[in-house]
Every structure is written in structure tokens, then in C-alpha cells.
């Protein structure tokens, strides 16, 4: 008996029923708001440039048994959905699979489900309101608190994340975290402190939005000035019981700036000996043509179901996580 491989579902069937009900509720929410459901490719010609998101490569053969063309499993549908926005789609949402190398653990499966939606005419703060409207009832929560990135660092670590230097961040990290970690990239230290010190402390507050990230962590968000005149990324994340659940932007629409960020990402990849990724010329071309001013957000569906059920193990909500796939 002990030699029988585990063939049955890792997730209890009742959890899969709950998962299906949550997905049905999401679809009903967007139907009610006249947001169009779309379906973009899982396999594409270009990969995202983010240095710390590693796309899974796949081998396509136009002639079976012949030459191989490298394709990529999407790590997020964002580039394709923006091309739809530029094509005149109006507000859109998608529930899709996304794939990432190396991401496996209690809260990660290399293949996972993502909800992503875009709202023309919204900025990131307006989209935060809609995220709360959709997710809080699904989580049995009545309200969410909102803090700026600067506020959570001030409150929990007593520093200004927009100006603290690497030496200062290293000193603070050493007070809270036992590690040999060494790096001269400020954002890596900020991410270390956010994930190891601040996130666990947000756990007791239920649903927490953190917004206005450092400009250096803008990714695909617009950069503007906050009330103190600091350059901030118009980006937010939602943490529920200390778990990162959503990431949203007031989307960058400037093609030249987008091309510059792709190049900067590839330069950083080069410095860290990470593979170079082909720039997605189709996204750049779409932005040059004109994409409406909009805000967009991605929500991890597996984690949403985990939070709704009250489990900290992703295998409780996925029938066949990778080892069983």
C-alpha cells in the first residue's frame, strides 16, 4: 500500500466546491458591472522583463520534428490585456493560468490561477475601492485599512523607505532578521524588510492596502509626486492576514518610458546573470498607438480561496499541485 502513488486530489472536494463558488461570484460581479471577460494566450512570443519573475520556456515546432521556436508560458496576462485595451476593448477582466519558474512552497505553486482586470478612467486609488468591493465579501471582512508604503515603514521600522540608504536598511534588517544576506540594491533590502518584518505585523489588521510604492519599484505603474513631493509609483498591494493577495497599478501609458523600463530590466538581468528576455515590441507598438488611461490589478485566486477557507497551504485549494500534476 505504501508504494501506491498519490493519485487523488490534494484538496478536499468541499474546498473545490468553495473555489468554484468564489469564481462564479467573481464572474457575476463583473457581469453586473458590464466588464468584458476576455481570453488571451497562455503561450506567447515574449516574456515579462521583471528580473525576479522567471518565465517558463517552452519549445514550439512549426514542423513536427523540425526546428524549435522558443515560446513562453505567460507569468501574467498583462501585456496581452493592455493590447486589448489599446484595441478599444473598454473595461476587461480575465481568469487565467499563470506560470513561474522556481516558485514552489506553502503559498506558491509554479502553475497558479490569476484574476486580472483593467478599468479605463480609474486611477490606482479608485481601483483599490473596487478591489475591496469585490474581495471583502468573499473573505467575510467588512472593511480594509489603507496605508502608504512610507507609513508602514515609519510605523513598524521607524525609517523613510524613499530615502534610507543601503547601510541604514542593512542595519535595520540585522536587528530583525538572521541572515547572511548581502546586496547593494536598495529595493532588495526594502523587499526583505517588507516580507519578513512588516507583512507578518499586518496580519492582525485583516485586509490592508499599501499604496504609493517607491518609484524604483514602479514596474508597470505611472510615477508621480506624493504630498511630500517624493516620487512614488502609483502602485498598490493588498495584504490579507499578512498574505500578499493583489498587486495593482495606475498603468503606465507612455511607450517611450515603457521601452526604457524594459531595457533597464534587461540591464539588471545582465548584472545578476539572469537570462535576457526579448522586449515585447507588440506592447510598445500598442502604447505608441495609444492606450486609454486606466488602472489594472492582478489577484491570486488560489490565495483568495486559501484566505476564504482559512488555510495557509496552497495544496488545500488545488486538486493537483505540481508534485501530483
Amino acid at each position, binding site marked *: 500500500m505504501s508504494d501506491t502513488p498519490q493519485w487523488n486530489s490534494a484538496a478536499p472536494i468541499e474546498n473545490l466546491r468553495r473555489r468554484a463558488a468564489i469564481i462564479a461570484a467573481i464572474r457575476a460581479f463583473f457581469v453586473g458591472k458590464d466588464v468584458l471577460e476576455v481570453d488571451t494566450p497562455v503561450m506567447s512570443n515574449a516574456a515579462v522583463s521583471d528580473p525576479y519573475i522567471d518565465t517558463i520556456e517552452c519549445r514550439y515546432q512549426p514542423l513536427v520534428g523540425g526546428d524549435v521556436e522558443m515560446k513562453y508560458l505567460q507569468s501574467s496576462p498583462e501585456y496581452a490585456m493592455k493590447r486589448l485595451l489599446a484595441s478599444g476593448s473598454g473595461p476587461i477582466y480575465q481568469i487565467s493560468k499563470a506560470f513561474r519558474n522556481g516558485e514552489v512552497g506553502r503559498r506558491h505553486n509554479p502553475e497558479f490561477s490569476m484574476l486580472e482586470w483593467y478599468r479605463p478612467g480609474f486611477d490606482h486609488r479608485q481601483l483599490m475601492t473596487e478591489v475591496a468591493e469585490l474581495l471583502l465579501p468573499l473573505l467575510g471582512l467588512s472593511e480594509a485599512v489603507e496605508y502608504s508604503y512610507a507609513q508602514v515603514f515609519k510605523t513598524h521600522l521607524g525609517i523613510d523607505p524613499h530615502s534610507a540608504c543601503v547601510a541604514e536598511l542593512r542595519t535595520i534588517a540585522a536587528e530583525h*532578521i538572521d*541572515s547572511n*544576506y548581502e546586496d547593494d540594491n536598495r529595493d*532588495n533590502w526594502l523587499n526583505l524588510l517588507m516580507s*519578513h518584518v512588516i507583512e507578518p505585523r499586518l496580519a492582525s489588521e485583516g485586509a490592508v492596502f499599501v499604496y504609493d510604492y517607491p518609484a524604483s519599484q514602479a514596474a508597470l505603474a505611472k510615477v508621480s509626486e506624493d504630498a511630500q513631493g517624493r516620487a512614488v509609483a502609483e502602485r498598490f498591494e493588498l495584504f490579507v492576514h499578512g498574505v500578499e493577495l493583489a498587486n495593482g497599478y495606475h498603468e503606465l501609458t507612455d511607450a517611450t518610458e515603457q521601452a526604457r523600463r524594459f531595457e533597464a530590466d534587461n540591464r539588471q538581468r545582465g548584472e545578476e546573470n539572469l537570462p535576457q528576455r526579448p522586449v515585447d515590441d507588440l506592447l510598445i507598438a500598442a502604447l505608441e498607438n495609444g492606450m486609454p488611461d486606466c488602472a489594472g490589478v492582478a489577484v491570486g485566486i488560489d490565495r483568495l480561496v486559501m484566505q476564504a477557507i482559512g488555510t495557509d497551504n496552497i495544496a488545500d485549494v488545488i486538486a493537483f499541485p505540481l508534485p501530483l500534476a
Partner: protein
Amino acid sequence: MANYSTNQFKNGLKVMIDGDPCSMVDVEFVKPGKGQAFTRVKMKNLMSGRTWERTFKSGESVEGADVMDTDMEYLYNDGEMWHFMDPKTYEQVAADQTAIGDAHLWLKEQDACQVTLFNGNPISVTPPNFVELEVVETDPGLKGDTAQGGSKPATLQSGAVVRVPLFIERGEVLKIDTRTGEYVSRA
């Protein structure tokens, strides 16, 4: 010993941290959405027993520790050291006061137990969950008082003192749970 990279980390893996053998109690992958990946490990120092959290950058590697849990037979105590034998190889090892900890309270000669060896030397001893030991000293039993509650101290052949029901007599053999140090039943 081999080196282990973060992707090989798992519960129970024994590694060297700051010169001491440590065991991984809980391994967690931590990845901020747009940031670098880390592996956060709840670690137990096998020499001091201290547990704490340590964070590794993804891809970082650490040296394995030559630590083995071995089933052995307890032989005798010479007044300073406790001696054990591997029943398969007849190899003998001696554990000092630090390594034996409280385990000596539950050991009688020829009992099986688990000895944790680091580079071949005992660093801890785990007795079986249940042991049978004879009462060598206790107040006289109360006849007929078998149903009613109440307890009294009894000294066992290993030197441990446990609370036992009032009806237990000197010379009886008792079953003890070594994890709690509590009386379970007559053997």
C-alpha cells in the same frame, strides 16, 4: 559533507550553522510579488536546543551536518558517562551529562533508545515513548483503594520520581510516558 542549496531544503535536513549542527524544523519559500525569492527556515540547534528563524537568499547553499539518529541499546552508567551499544555493529558510544539531558531518568539497562550522533559522538538521547520501570520506594499502598482518586510520589529504579495512584506498591512494574513523565498504568 555535501552542500545543500535552498531548493533542496526540507524539514529534518541537518546542516552546519555557525559551527553547530542544526535541524530544519520548518522550511518556507518567501517571495514578494516583484522581489527576490528567499527561503525562511525555522532551525533547531542540536547542541543547545535553541530554535530560531534564519533567512537564506534563493540559491544560497549550506554545508550538511554529519548527524545520524541511531537505534541503540543502553548498557550502563559508570558514574560519569552513559554507555550505549549499536546492536547491529556492537559499536559502543558514551554520552556525557549534556548529551543525556533528562533521558537518564527513563533508562534501564538493555532498553532500546535513539542516540543522535554528530561526527560519531552522541549529542542527544531520546528514550522510547513508553518505558516499564520498577518502583523502588513509595509509601505503603492503601488496601482496597483502587477506584478513588489521589496520588503519591514513587521512586523508580532509574531514579525518576513520578506521581502514582495510592494503591501502587513497592516492587510493582509501571508503564510510564517519557514525553510527559507521567504514570500510565501497571505494566
